């Protein structure tokens, strides 16, 4: 049951987010669909080697456009193919899941804490919350920023030509709730990602314990409520299922429920619904 569920979740993810140029996309969809319909195809290493090759072709054809989770999905398909052929598939897959999650998060932490020039001082989230239209509802809801304030801030962030300096540039101060949102998102995400990276990579070879599951579920439950990359969330949760022992049924069910939660996050504009409800309530 354990490894089949993992393979099925991966196939469903491939079907939910069709990807790649026309020469690759139908083949990925066909292989994933066939895997779901035929247990023999699902449990065959060959299926997952083929999917690894197709995803690699997709990355090469569109490089550098593919998002990072497409790379992780490719490594994961390779891990599935290699693990199915192992003497203990479940254990091999669990080790692969731990190493892949830990290493991906370690790289994310290295970028944020060491390589990026504008993350630790809060600039990244300040700019992103203000300018990315996908976060408009979340900023209004969590940052207590009115649509007018948001428009003003966006206008103030219109770029100046190289080397130009405005004569009088005194933007209005950000609301306290927005400053708190920037602070919490900057340091909260960095702390959570650091925790995931080190918990998953150290000590080497140890089995996943309650801490691993708790922080991975917490990360996915919180991050993908806002971040518009459901595919990344599904992949991490599928790897979480791979970390469960055969007797941990409740834990596996929790991962599957969270998997659907991420699906609902991506399909239901919950922040917009909340903002509309709050504005109706305050108007009444």
């Amino acid at each position, binding site marked *: 049951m354990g490894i089949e569920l993992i393979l099925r979740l991966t196939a469903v993810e491939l079907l939910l987010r069709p990807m790649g140029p026309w020469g690759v996309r139908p083949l990925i969809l066909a292989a994933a669909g066939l895997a779901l319909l035929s247990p023999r195809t699902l449990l065959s290493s060959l299926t997952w080697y083929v999917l690894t090759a197709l995803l690699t072709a997709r990355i090469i054809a569109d490089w*550098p456009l593919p998002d990072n989770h497409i790379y992780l999905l490719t490594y994961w398909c390779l891990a599935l193919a290699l693990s199915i052929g192992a003497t203990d598939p479940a254990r091999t897959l669990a080790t692969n899941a731990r190493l892949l999650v830990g290493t991906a998060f370690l*790289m994310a932490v290295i970028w944020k804490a060491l390589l*990026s020039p504008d993350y630790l001082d809060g*600039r990244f989230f300040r700019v992103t919350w203000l300018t990315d239209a996908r976060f408009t509802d979340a900023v209004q809801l969590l940052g207590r920023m009115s649509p007018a304030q948001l428009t003003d801030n966006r206008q103030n962030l219109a770029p100046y030509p190289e080397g130009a300096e405005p004569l009088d540039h*005194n933007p209005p101060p950000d609301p306290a709730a927005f400053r708190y949102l920037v602070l919490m998102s900057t340091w909260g995400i960095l702390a959570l990602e650091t925790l995931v990276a080190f918990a998953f990579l150290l000590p080497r070879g140890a089995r996943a314990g309650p801490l691993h599951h708790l922080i991975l579920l917490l990360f996915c439950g919180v991050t993908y409520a806002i971040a518009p990359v459901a595919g990344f969330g599904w992949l991490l949760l599928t790897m979480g299922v791979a970390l469960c022992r055969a007797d941990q049924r409740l834990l596996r069910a929790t991962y599957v429920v969270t998997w659907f939660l991420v699906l609902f996050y991506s399909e239901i504009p919950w922040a917009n619904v909340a903002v509309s409800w709050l504005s109706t309530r305050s108007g009444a």
Partner: protein
Amino acid sequence: MPVSSTAGRIAAHWRTAIPTALLLAVAITQVVLARVADLSPWKGGGFGMFATTDGTAFRYVRLFVDAPGRSEELNVTDSLEFDAVRAQLFPSQRFLTRLGEAAGARELRNGREAATVRVEVWKVEFSDQPLRANERRLRSLTIPIDRQPTAK
């Protein structure tokens, strides 16, 4: 017995080492390309997303065509969009040339003169306190446009 157990251990380890080794190799390459060749940290498999403003949203390309009696900026049309996004995320000589040639060929196809196309990649940078945006040119390349001999 020791031989088979060692062989077993190797067999178990290579199945778990290969995916992570690939991840690391690609990620290290991405960091190097981002440092030396202006690859956007968001792209390339290094997991630099949501770490910096230097992503697709704050990079753009500008195209300028020159010909006798003509010097003007071109719009990035839908047919150039893929090459433009590629060049803005990784402004390598190859991708800039491909975009410039595609833009030049489009001009010629539409009966307009084009001797050269200059491709510029720009990024928007944000300074802190007060938060302010400034544009900076990352790369620029001028590509001569060859007029293909017309078939007789």
